[in-house]
């Protein structure tokens, strides 16, 4: 009896026996992380805090990180670019070895990452959080040169959001802002529609006769009923959204004429044109054989280990992880789970249960925020927990006296989310 009880007590995981002590004992090992965005920075911090025996290296070419989230608030004039830009100093101070170099290649047979200067970083386990690449040429005529005239504002390390911001500021009153929005999958599913909203907020204040035409390669989008309800209430007559079945798919651009050409040949001219092109997993993931023919990286849903290259974990926007969206919060959720799986793997233990989480807030106007939530579990497949999650209630679902307060709170909580998640990564 005593022996049995001792055995049971010995089996209690550290989290239960000493819940206040977040740190877990674990096997030592060199964990190298490629990419310092939401996925990579979250992985580095979590590995450092929770598994002190791990040696953690983060490889990130850039010395600063500007978030995609809240970039749309720069367009609205609510935020400065500086307020959404962070450094890796705190991560380094916490004991993460941060290497500001481009990761050229992964030599998985030798378990090392080759850097731009020719040196190599050896690893026991590798996490690749490469983000996305824009597929130049996927829309005919849309290459890097064209993006100077028709900014994408979708990958801050390629082009800062301020390029689009300057064009919007310079646009004449009564002008037209045209957006080309890609088909799924792409980074930040509600992002283009938050962008429409934040540009509308700016126009309403400074260019009230301006128009927005959104040309979309699909027929529906994230939080659609909430966005459209808000647009009608806040920006009546300003926004025209055209889905794929209404000839919304842009197949070609003419930067000289500032025109988007649709599938059936309609030419839509804008004074400012924002083209969000189709995307793929970041270069290094594709070159390392982590992506399949779709351009994205299949993973094992229970662990986020690559389904193509054992011993490499892939996280964030680059992965095929539907029904999880390609979001910063999702990347952070993948990151922590991947780190815990790696720690378990190094210690010869089974991986922890795979439970993932996402919340995406969108700002649609002053004191007006909306959200989508999801809880997910990974086994043979990744599934959303039935009966949970979903989008904020529509107006009709809220008592009239609660509507304004509900939207105001979600806008406030969006700011709280931003502070919390960036604080966790870079604070």
């Amino acid at each position, binding site marked *: 009896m005593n022996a049995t009880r001792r055995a*049971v*007590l010995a*089996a*209690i*995981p550290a*989290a*239960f*026996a000493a*819940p*206040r002590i*977040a740190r*877990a004992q674990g096997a030592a090992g060199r964990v190298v992380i490629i990419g310092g965005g939401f996925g990579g920075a979250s992985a580095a911090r*979590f590995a450092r805090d*929770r598994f002190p025996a791990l040696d953690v290296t983060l490889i990130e070419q850039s010395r600063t990180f500007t978030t995609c989230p809240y970039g749309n608030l720069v367009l609205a004039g609510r935020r400065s670019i500086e307020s959404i830009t962070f450094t890796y100093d705190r991560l380094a101070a916490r004991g993460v070895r941060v290497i500001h170099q481009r990761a050229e290649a992964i030599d998985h047979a030798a378990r090392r990452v080759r850097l731009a200067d020719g040196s190599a970083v050896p690893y026991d386990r590798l996490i690749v959080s490469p983000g996305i690449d824009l597929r130049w040429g996927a829309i005919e005529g849309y290459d890097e040169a064209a993006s100077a005239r028709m900014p994408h504002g979708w990958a801050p390390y390629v082009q800062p959001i301020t390029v689009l911001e300057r064009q919007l500021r310079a646009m004449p009153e009564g002008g037209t802002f045209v957006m080309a929005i890609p088909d799924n999958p792409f980074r930040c599913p509600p992002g283009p529609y938050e962008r429409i909203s934040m540009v509308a907020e700016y126009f309403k204040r400074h260019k009230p006769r301006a128009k927005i035409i959104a040309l979309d390669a699909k027929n529906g989008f994230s939080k659609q009923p909430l966005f459209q309800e808000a647009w009608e209430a806040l920006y009546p007559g300003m926004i025209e959204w055209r889905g794929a079945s209404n000839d919304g798919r842009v197949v070609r651009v003419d930067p000289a004429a500032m025109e988007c050409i649709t599938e059936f040949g309609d030419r839509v001219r804008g004074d400012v044109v924002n083209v969000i092109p189709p995307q793929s997993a970041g270069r290094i993931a594709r070159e390392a054989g982590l992506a399949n023919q779709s351009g994205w990286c299949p993973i094992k849903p229970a662990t986020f280990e690559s389904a193509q290259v054992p011993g490499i974990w892939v996280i964030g926007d680059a992965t095929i992880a539907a029904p999880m969206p390609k979001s910063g*919060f999702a990347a*952070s*959720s993948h990151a*922590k*789970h991947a780190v*815990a799986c790696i720690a378990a793997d190094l210690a010869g*233990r*089974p*991986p*922890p*249960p795979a*439970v993932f*989480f996402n*919340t995406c807030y969108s700002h649609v106007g002053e004191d007006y925020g909306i*959200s989508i*939530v*999801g*809880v997910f579990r990974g086994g043979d497949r990744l599934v959303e*927990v039935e*009966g*949970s*999650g*979903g989008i*904020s209630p529509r107006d009709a679902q809220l008592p009239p006296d609660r509507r304004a307060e*509900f939207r105001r*709170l*979600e806008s*406030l*909580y969006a*700011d*709280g*989310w931003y*502070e*919390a*998640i960036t*604080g*966790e990564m870079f*604070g």
Partner: protein
Amino acid sequence: MRLAVLAAVAWSVGIGAAAAQVPDAALLAGACQGCHGATGEGGHGIPSIRQMQTQAEFVATMRAFRANERPNTVMGRIARGYTDAEIAALAQHFAKPQP
């Protein structure tokens, strides 16, 4: 204290023999920390969840969210995604230490 440990053993054994099925509180807490902050401290109108309630109160709050019996914006949608065992693990992680 000993009772609490034994209770934890009782339900962790009860939810399945496989050790892999025992909730990992530090991992689950990531969902909370994304908005409530790295230590649950809150901010921007998001309430602190750091040692604000006893474990029993924490569990009762989450159950009320789940049943939509407590006013909320996102918490009902979130709470319905987690099992009783997971909520108990989160209560241990965030709630006041047991006296």
